[in-house]
């Protein structure tokens, strides 16, 4: 493929049917099809509407605190002795993660569509908090679906959502984690489709969600690209981001896709290791199938049932992945790798001690892989890691592993 053909290919997905090659699409029940068509039409109009974009940019600047810094991790890079590592500090956003970039965008869509109520699914609680936050600001009713198991693991975020005026609904079906929360949010949406906007937290779900969430998260990569040029006078050699559903990764990667010399690494949750069944790495160990409205790589058994997943980080504990990642894997543009629980935990401690930055356990997966990658490169080379969230929410998990109870 020539360079220009490739560039056309990146811009051409998703197509009008919401497909990224053979992935994506709209695999939902008929009741939701009209709502998806409406959202598609509204988004097509607003995504090129200057007033809407100004409103969004204004919020990103003054409410979220963008642009987020690109920070050279000097001591950590020196310690590794390989490529220089720069951290894209999404952890410094209001609410502490990249999730808010998307919830602000979708909540503005909801407002323009006249919806009074927003719903969201959440795993670690970051997307739930980001949704509850923007709902508070816009005066929208907000209900967040969260697996019973995750409510137990993430008590702090549950309370944050309640303080923000959201109702957290405990999901007790299936495995009681993120995928089941998404099922329940879909069921609510089917029931209340007239007055409710479903704010999906990642680049998954039926079309047009993978498209619009990507577009809202691309601010990460656009900023990072400009910051690399301004601060280092060059583009990076590699990008590294963790991949659960994959929204922070696509946000960083997408604006660089045409920069052919920039290598990209999406880091999935290796859990207890790919040799076990306790992981959440569909791109590394799964097969294509349909879940939550799109065709993508999934963790599934021989009978097409979705498998239970495991990761130390609730935000990566998901059996699917955004369809664009599946496409980018198949065409070979992005390398999908894994970091396991132990590696992520070590990276969490390292960054905290060496740089004074406490990363989310999700982002720690990206850090763990970046450390290995940097060690194989030279000090003249440069890596950008998406530090997608801060680690305050994970203190209980880490403390428990260290045998400490509060």
């Amino acid at each position, binding site marked *: 493929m020539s360079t220009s053909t490739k560039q056309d290919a990146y811009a051409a997905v998703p197509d009008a*049917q919401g497909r990224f090659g053979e992935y994506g*699409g*709209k*695999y*939902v*029940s*008929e*009741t*939701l*099809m*009209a*709502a998806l068509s409406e959202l598609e039409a509204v988004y097509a109009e607003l995504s090129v509407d200057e007033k809407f974009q100004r409103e969004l940019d204004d919020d990103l600047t003054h409410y979220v605190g963008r642009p987020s810094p690109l920070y050279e991790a000097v001591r950590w890079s020196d310690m590794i002795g390989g490529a220089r590592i720069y951290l894209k500090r999404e952890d410094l956003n209001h609410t502490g993660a990249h999730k808010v970039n998307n919830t602000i965008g979708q909540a503005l869509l909801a407002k323009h569509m006249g919806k009074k109520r927003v719903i969201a699914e959440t795993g670690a609680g970051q997307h739930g908090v980001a949704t509850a936050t923007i709902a508070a600001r816009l005066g929208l009713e907000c209900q967040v679906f969260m697996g019973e198991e995750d409510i137990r693991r993430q008590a702090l975020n549950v309370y944050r959502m309640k303080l923000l005026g959201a109702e957290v609904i405990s999901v007790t*079906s*299936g495995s009681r984690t993120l*995928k*089941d929360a998404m*099922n329940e949010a*879909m*069921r609510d949406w*089917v*029931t*209340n*489709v*007239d007055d409710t906007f479903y704010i999906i937290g990642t680049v998954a779900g039926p079309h047009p969600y993978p498209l619009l969430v990507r577009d809202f998260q691309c601010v990460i990569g656009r900023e990072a690209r400009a910051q690399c040029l301004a601060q280092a006078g060059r583009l990076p050699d590699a990008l590294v981001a963790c991949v659960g559903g994959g929204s922070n990764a696509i946000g960083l990667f997408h604006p660089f896709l045409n920069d052919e010399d920039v290598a990209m690494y999406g880091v999935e949750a290796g859990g207890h290791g790919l040799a076990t069944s306790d992981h959440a790495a569909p791109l590394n160990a799964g*097969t294509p*199938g*349909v*879940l*939550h*409205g799109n065709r993508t790589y*999934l963790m*599934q058994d*021989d*009978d*097409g*049932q*979705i498998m239970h997943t495991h990761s130390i980080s609730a935000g990566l504990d998901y059996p699917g992945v955004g369809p664009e990642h599946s496409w980018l894997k198949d065409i070979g543009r992005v390398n999908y790798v894994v970091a396991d629980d132990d590696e992520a935990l070590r990276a969490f401690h390292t960054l905290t001690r060496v740089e004074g930055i406490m990363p989310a356990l999700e982002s720690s997966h990206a850090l763990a892989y970046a450390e290995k990658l940097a060690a194989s490169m030279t000090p003249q080379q440069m890596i950008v890691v998406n530090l997608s969230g801060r680690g305050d929410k994970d203190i209980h998990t880490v403390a428990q592993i260290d045998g400490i109870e509060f």
Partner: protein
Amino acid sequence: MSRIAGCFQKLAEEGRTALIPYVVAGDPRQAFTVPLMHKLVESGADILELGVPFSDPMAEGPVIQLAHERALANGTTLSKVLAMVSEFRKTDSTTPVLLMGYANPVMHMGYRNFANAAVAAGLDGLLTVDIPPEEVDGINGELQRVEMDNIFLVAPTTPDERIARIASRASGFIYYVSLKGVTGAGNLDTVEVASRVGAIRRHSSLPVAVGFGIKDAASARAVAQTADGVVVGSALVNTMAEVIERGGESDAAIAAAASLLGDIRRGIDSPA
């Protein structure tokens, strides 16, 4: 003519409405399902709809979700569901049977493999909740190849122009989802249903069956005034689950389901 089309034609000639019970295959035990199917036919079922258990049944309310979980827990798979249909066919070659389920298990088996296995088992139709007309191209060709009906949903939110599009791909009958919500919800509006069934008839000559939210003889009777078929699911599944939960035997659960279905049959058939 397919068994489903033949069934609707015969009922239309007799001036009767099809009664279509839905149960989840393998719930609560695999050996439970085939005897239940026969009993439902004895109690007035015209067409049987078997739910294929799936780990993430997004369109289902709590009652049917639990039935899916119970069936999965005892190892019920799509292949085993087809084996149940095959077993049922040994002694009933006339009652149409269709499967209702989700895309992934069928896709994972492979559309061609599924079509071949399904026709060999004596299955008549497939309703895949999360395969709308936009995504149907892969599977429709395979179903047509083996002359199996592909049943589509029409919802309260479906605009008229979409109804036409759905109808052009559908066969057997059209399944109208009577409410915005999940299976077993309680907000059935029979006036609205009548109006929507009328809209479907303007675009399609296929029979129209109505499901979601029909739980007893009265609601079935009201819907039967306008529909060619009435689907009853959650009420049956719940009736059986309650018997089993109280420690009842399989026979007692099947008898309870048969009794409820019999009531509904009489409700539908009683003169207006």
